[in-house]
């Protein structure tokens, strides 16, 4: 498994854990708010967990564009390497 796929899976697991869903229930293009029921506190928990796991600080202006699970992975990949 390459590193990018690994990030995708880790982010999916992390999001699933916070949203109290099974990872298999989460599709990459699922919208965090509309489809998965994420609220502002869960969003903060996801951001904080991702930043802690990957030791990055995600810029707030970019976070505004994070709407789907895949876009969480994308922003992580942009800042991890």
């Amino acid at each position, binding site marked *: 498994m390459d590193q990018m796929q690994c990030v995708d899976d880790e982010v999916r697991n992390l999001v699933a854990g916070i949203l109290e869903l099974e990872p298999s229930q989460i599709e990459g293009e699922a919208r965090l708010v509309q489809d998965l029921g994420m*609220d*502002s*506190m869960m*969003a*903060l*928990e996801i*951001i*904080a967990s991702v*930043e*802690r796991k990957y030791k990055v600080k995600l810029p*707030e202006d970019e*976070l505004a564009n994070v709407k789907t699970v895949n876009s969480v992975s994308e922003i992580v990949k942009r800042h991890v390497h």
Partner: protein
Amino acid sequence: MSTEVEAVQQLDFEAVKQIIPQRFPFLMLDRILEVRPGVCAVGLKNLTGNEWFYQGHFPKRAVTPGAMINEAIAQTGIVFFHYSREDDAEHDVTYLLGAIRMRFLKPVWPGDQLRLEIVPIRMMRHSAMLAARAFVQDQVVAKGELLLSAKPNREL
């Protein structure tokens, strides 16, 4: 004097009540020893044997309920978040506790003085994830994390 030093504030009981809407029996802060916006806050709660919750917790041996320690931590977090939010953020808000994960390490007794320390993990415009530790003297009695949100009153 540096800006950081100027930003440190102490709040007495009356000043705390200007920020915290809770009142008896749920006001669990006597004083803020310091609050540095964006950096930390330290709250103080003196526990007397006369606290209302000792009547039932427990009748034969008073011990401070973890829920009330959580409340003291959350209220210190509210003061911190209040001072740390951006100047242009809406301030006609109600602060809501979204989650709290706390480990209670030692029992807290009547007569103890709780010192509540808050530092930010991650803050955004309307929500904050905070790390908290509660001390009695120099011993950590509880530690964990909490999530707070600032909900505009017009949306409630």
